[in-house]
């Protein structure tokens, strides 16, 4: 018989879990309906039944070293069918929220992300940052609102403000993710590994498989319950609109910086409305609105007895709404030629975009990286 494991319940940890979305976890009576109902849970040691008892017993280490929380795609079937309203889906979401906090340093940001009371700080940092830029440019321009045709570059020039700030932000984020992902993978190690027979693949090939088979196709969303096509459509619309906007940003950046070397490819903003890149950008914006509308509607329709959206869910949705609406608004006010409003909305757009990117590793959007890493990891471990 194996040496018994000494149990040291960490009730403080249980309280924290309850605070980040797992408030019903104690209601579980271990019938395992959830594990049976989950369409994508593995056959051996299926989640989320075991996570529920670990949570109830305050078994912190077990939960923190658990890769299964990332396999869950949060369709809510388990919570819908739970006879006790214990909301196992919410518990796994809460554990992921906790992981964002725990894996990503500096952890103070994670704390700020955990509760609406810190929202002023999160908003305040980019607000001050971009206000300083505005003030400097106002003194350079000699006027708070630049004169003439509205060109946002007059107030927030790419070369000296937007690009350097976002390049620094972006690479910091990548660095933070890199460390966070290493922490994540390290935490899984104690769980041991499955013997994989035959040739083993390099992790990069597994990553490619994950991207190809799961992420780009959203195949898990299809497996997750059968009547949730709205969720798949919404998530996919947001996902692909982000990719479109990323491509647009890349083209604009390439055009801008490349244009300095090869004038032929030079690209200047604002682009004409019928310019192909602009059309692509606006298609992306519309897709984003549609996707967000679907996801927001879905969350608002949820039965709070079954599934409850937590602060992490709403924070992310609202920040993306903020980005989307200020982006579209800036364009519309620019076209309408209402300079003070257009410049201010553009300022807000910069604030929101920075919020989205700078805090990304601590936000729910961190699943972009962590889930991908975890899915790659489980493929390597042979847990399917």
């Amino acid at each position, binding site marked *: 018989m194996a040496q*018994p*494991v*000494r149990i040291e319940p960490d*009730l403080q940890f249980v309280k924290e879990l309850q605070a980040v979305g797992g408030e019903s976890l104690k*209601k579980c009576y271990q019938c395992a309906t959830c594990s049976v109902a989950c369409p994508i849970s593995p056959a051996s040691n299926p989640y989320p039944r075991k996570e529920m*008892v670990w949570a109830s017993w305050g078994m912190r280490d077990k939960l923190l070293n658990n890769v299964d929380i990332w396999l869950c795609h949060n369709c809510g079937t388990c919570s819908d069918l739970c006879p006790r309203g214990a909301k196992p889906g919410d518990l796994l979401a809460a554990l992921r929220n906790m992981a964002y906090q725990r894996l990503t340093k500096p952890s103070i940001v994670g704390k700020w992300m955990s509760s609406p009371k810190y929202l002023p700080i999160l908003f305040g940092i980019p607000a001050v940052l971009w206000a300083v830029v505005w003030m400097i440019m106002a003194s350079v321009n000699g006027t708070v609102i630049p004169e003439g045709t509205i060109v946002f570059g007059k107030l927030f020039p790419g070369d000296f403000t937007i690009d350097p700030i976002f390049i620094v932000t972006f690479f910091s984020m990548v660095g933070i993710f890199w460390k966070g992902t290493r922490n994540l993978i390290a935490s899984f190690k104690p769980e041991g590994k499955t013997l994989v027979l035959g040739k083993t693949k390099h992790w990069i090939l597994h990553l490619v498989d994950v991207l190809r088979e799961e992420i780009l196709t959203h195949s898990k969303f299809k497996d997750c319950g059968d009547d949730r096509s709205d969720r798949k459509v919404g998530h996919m619309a947001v996902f692909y609109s982000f990719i479109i906007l990323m491509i647009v940003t890349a083209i604009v950046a390439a055009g801008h910086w490349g244009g300095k070397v090869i004038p032929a490819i030079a690209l200047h903003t604002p682009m004409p409305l019928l310019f192909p890149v602009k059309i692509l950008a606006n298609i992306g914006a519309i897709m984003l609105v549609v996707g967000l509308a679907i996801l927001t509607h879905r969350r608002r329709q949820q039965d709070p007895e079954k599934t409850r959206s937590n602060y992490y869910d709403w924070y992310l949705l609202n920040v993306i709404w903020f980005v989307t609406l200020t982006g579209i608004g800036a364009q519309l006010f620019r076209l309408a030629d209402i300079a003070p409003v257009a410049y201010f909305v553009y300022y807000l757009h910069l604030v929101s975009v920075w919020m989205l990117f700078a805090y990304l590793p601590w936000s729910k959007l961190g699943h972009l990286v962590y889930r991908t890493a975890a899915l790659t990891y489980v493929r390597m471990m042979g847990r399917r």
Partner: protein
Amino acid sequence: MAKKIGVYFDKSNIGAGLDLDALSDVVTGKFGGSCPVVKVFPVLGAETARQEIRQDIAENELDGVLIIGSSPRVDWDLYRFEGVTVERVNLREQGVLGYGAKVEAGEDAEADEDLFKLAADYVRMGVVKLTKMEEAGGGEVESVRTIMVLGGGWTGLTAAVNAANSGYDVVLVEKEAELGGRAKGLLKTVPLKYPYTDVHDTGIEQKIAAVEGNERITVLTSAKVRKVSGQPGQFTAVVKTKDGNQEIPVGAIVMATGWQPMDAGVMAPFGYGTLEGVVTAAEFEKMAKEGTLKARRVAFILNTGLVDGGDIYTSVCDEEPAEAAAAKPEAEDDEQTSYEHKDLESLRHLPYTNAISSVVALKQAGYVCDASEDGQAFILYDSMVVQGIHERFYKAAQDKLGVMMSKADITGVAQAEDGGLLVRAANTLMGEDVEIRVDMVVLPTGMVPSTAKDPVVWFDYRQGPNLPDLDLFDGYADSNYICFPYETRRTGLYAAGCVRQPMMLDAAEEDAIGATMKAIQCIESANRGMAVHPRSGDLSYPIFNFVRCTQCKRCTEECPFGALDDDEKGTPKPNFSRCRRCGTCMGACPERVISFANYNIDQIGSMIREIEVPDDMNAGGPRVLILACENDAYPALDMAALRGHHWSPYVRIIPVRCLGSVNAIWVADAMSKGIDGVMLLGCKYGDDYQCHFVKGSEICNRRKENIAETLNRLGVEPERVEQYEVAIDEYDKLPGMIDEFMNMILEKGPNPFKGY
């Protein structure tokens, strides 16, 4: 003894396939003198028809009415006529439907003839039955309107107040010096009121005050019953008190003598008795009540597999628990010394108590978690059994941060390095073997009913002071029939609370009220000369023709309810209000001494003799007599017919009160008459008996073996008499049983006595 009978046919129920006019001729032909009125009504249930019957009764001075139509189990409220004896002949279910519906009227002449013969037999049997029947009555017993409640705990106090408020005097007997019982030792109770989520005070003090302030209730503390004699309505209880013995006349008794904790010595495998901090739930409650509880981390072990193997169906070793066996009840006087009570305490009382232990663990886990912020309670169970509304309490307890539960097999309890305790468990829900460091371990307390240790009531009955067959229920004074809670094997004694089965305060309260109602019913029934149960309202009772009695004592021994005492010579001494009117005594008596006014040996024998048996089995078919228990088998036959099942036209069914009342002479009558076989249809017997009278079908089966022996000697195959066990819901199997029996008879050929 009906002499002028009106016979009425109900065309609406049995007209199909039966020539009722021809049947009327059968009646007038055979019983013309005693049946002055024979009529066929198109619809007998109509008020006009019944009006006409009333007229006939008045004009012709009828003293008996025979209704021929549907089963006596239906429409019984329609056919009640003042001043005459009414009998029903069931030609609908057990005639036209059970057989006749098989063929369309007129299509098969032979089948029609069989149906007519069957109907004619039943009609003649009906008339004869009526002529051998008298109105029952006259068994009134002057009742004492006092209820004795044994036990002054939660249940007893509730019963006492309830009885007093219903207008009866109460004598409450408590063995301890104070009222309150075990409820008094509880710190809190599992919630008894909405929202059923939080523990609260029991309220036992208010109950005690209500009893002490009630003028109708006499409380005897430090008192014990030493003897109860007499019969319901007229018991005499001898109660030993501080001031000596008191003789108290009582009408009925509510037994609420509760439970005692099981010998905790058996818990040694969990470290009980050797490790400090290992206690039972009862001891834990006491510590909580006294405020001496310090433990922050407590394991509540509900899986007692280490002790009882986890299987409640394994047989219990006789030598366990060793200590309990040694503790014999103290004999207090000569009469009591001659009786030796078998101690029925066993390991099984642990699993029996599981439903209580589970909820108590939840409650006590709450004590731990509510006492301090960091309180932790681990509940390790095999099965949490939380009944009914207590599910709400379970949910509330579960929601407490410090309460942790898991299914677990306990592998051991050991001393921890730091002086605490280590509980080790395997097969947990956490997916691995675990050990938990705790300050205390709480083990469940098995609730042993007081009747397992002691006869409690000390009946002065011929069959002994104790309730019979208590070992079937491991000492609980339960009757095992779901339909009749509170009933015991002694009429007038009603069990309530934990002496009946382990239960919590809410259920005990309900029990107390139920048992009080039964006690009241008993007193009032005795007063009117009626049976209490299960033939409630039956006015008949056994009448003894002592001239022929040979003092063989079979009746006194076989009575399942100890109704018969005897004198020095062995002559039976009936106690009518103890009797449940099953007729087992009548079936037992070889001298046919015992009869009921409306049910007797001669009556059934005469009915059997009315069955026409064709001399040639091949020409007229065989004949088989079915004696069917009227509680289960007879209704099952009705149901079978109503649901479209059919059986042979060659059987004749006679209902009996209980197979226990079947006298061997009836079988002899049938065989000598040339009937080819006798089927006895009765309830299931044995440990899981379903017999309304507990022992009837079992006794009948025993008698059947004697009958078989006799038949064998006479050269008749014993297989011709067979007993079948039928549950009331097995109606669909009945036709198959009958077919099987008929085939066997056809194979064996005619009864060798046929034609003599």
